[in-house]
């Protein structure tokens, strides 16, 4: 008997009527969203639109009203592992390799795998030579690469990226973007918040546009940048941003 072909993409994380409040401020309002395996989802929108909040909610870092459901991976039959890359990575005042090992320790990775995973991750981001150096002495681009190595060493199924290149110079931005594309090519599901629509166009397969905590559009990258199906507010956002971010 042959296995049936998968007709639809596999859901990983589902949000139903998700709402997040910070005091009296509603940061996200009744969001319905399903993240599928292998997707590269870009969250776009102006400042304060709720991109980072949605990213954190998907990752499970924030409590919220409504429903957040993590679906078991098939055929692995386990919950997806997530890792997050922040705009300004927080690195401990320890050598580079310890920053990767700490992540492995926190995730309960068996100790005999630490050396190998740490070495592979640092090699992948080109930081092997700097393994003994204090992490905080690295440049901004190197620090972001180290944060990517720390996340990648966890062998995540979903990688959340919160404006990962926003504070980098153009050269470091290109380096980190290339690494993200490489990670995506491995089949890891990506969710990325970004102001950079050019980056969204290059890296994403699906785009979600937010405004004031509401979901304006949820389209494939081609349809989003085609612009034809966009609601007025999303079209205005696209029009305003594309002039600066090509």
């Amino acid at each position, binding site marked *: 008997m042959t296995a049936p072909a998968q007709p639809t993409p596999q859901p990983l994380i589902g949000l139903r009527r998700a709402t997040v409040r910070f005091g009296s401020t509603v940061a996200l309002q009744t969001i319905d969203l399903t993240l599928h395996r292998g997707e590269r989802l870009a969250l776009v929108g102006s400042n304060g639109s709720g991109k980072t909040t949605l990213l*954190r909610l998907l*990752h499970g*870092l924030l409590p919220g009203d409504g429903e957040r459901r993590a679906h078991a991976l098939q055929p692995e039959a386990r919950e997806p592992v*997530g*890792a*997050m890359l*922040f705009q300004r*990575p*927080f690195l*401990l*005042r*320890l*050598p580079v390799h310890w920053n990767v090992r*700490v*992540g492995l320790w*926190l*995730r*309960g990775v068996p100790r005999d795998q630490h050396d190998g995973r740490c070495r592979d991750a640092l090699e992948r981001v080109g930081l092997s030579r*700097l393994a*003994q*150096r*204090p992490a905080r*002495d690295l440049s901004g681009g190197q620090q972001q690469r180290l944060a990517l190595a*720390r996340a990648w060493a*966890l062998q995540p199924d979903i990688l*959340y990226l919160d404006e990962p290149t926003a504070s980098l110079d153009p050269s470091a931005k290109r380096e980190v973007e290339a690494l993200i594309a490489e990670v995506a090519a491995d089949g890891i599901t990506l969710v990325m918040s970004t102001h950079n629509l050019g980056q969204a166009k290059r890296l994403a397969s699906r785009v979600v546009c937010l405004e004031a905590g509401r979901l304006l559009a949820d389209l494939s990258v081609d349809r989003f940048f085609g612009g034809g199906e966009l609601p007025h507010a999303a079209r205005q956002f696209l029009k305003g941003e594309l002039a600066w971010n090509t």
Partner: protein
Amino acid sequence: MRLRAHLDLDIPCRRARHPTVSVLSESLGTAAALLAQGDRTLWHTVALSLQVSGSACLLGAGFGIALGAALAAYRFAGQRALVLLLNTLLALPSVVVGLMVYLLLSRQGPLGSLGILFTPTAMVIAQSVLVVPLIAALTRRLLLSALAEGGDQLRSLGAGPGQAALLLLVHERFGLLTVLLTAFGRAIAEVGAVMIVGGNIDGVTRVMTTSIALETSKGDLPLALALGFVLLAVVGLINALIGLLQWRGARAPAEAMA
């Protein structure tokens, strides 16, 4: 004229019937002479001061760091009240601590059977009680700042509150050393608690601050001030050594790379 000091030292000294400036300059000279003569009694007193306050800080650090970390990392009922109490205890007078420990350790007290009143151990306990609120409050503040910077990222890596606090204590180890130095400064400079529970017994529980208090009560202000300068010089030297270690510690990994 030569003064036979309480500490059994031969110190060249003029009588203290001078204006303030003269007393200060005389005290500085006396302090230099005390250090230069290397008297055993003086060094024994200095060593006991360092030993008592150092031990008190280590003991207080065990409780204070754990308490401060717990208050920073965990959320629980009554936390605000505990923080308020802790901050209030920062103003705890050392004499009150001395009295409380005295009542605990005196013959009729609940711990009287230990027989440690008027011993250096009692002084260590009293100073520990004194520094725990200080260490806890400063550790909490240090960790709250660190958690604001990196708490979310550690949680995203899977850290629970305890693990995050532990990692951030390692991360802020140089800041923590400054906290301990502050506590050490508070302990070694206090006189009320050690006077009450130690009794200022010559050669047994006499430390620098109780010696200073004694000389002041005897009216020998230049010698009292001189002992104060000696105390400051010793603590200053320790601070400088720890500062050097911090500096070397911060530089060492970078140098290893070069």
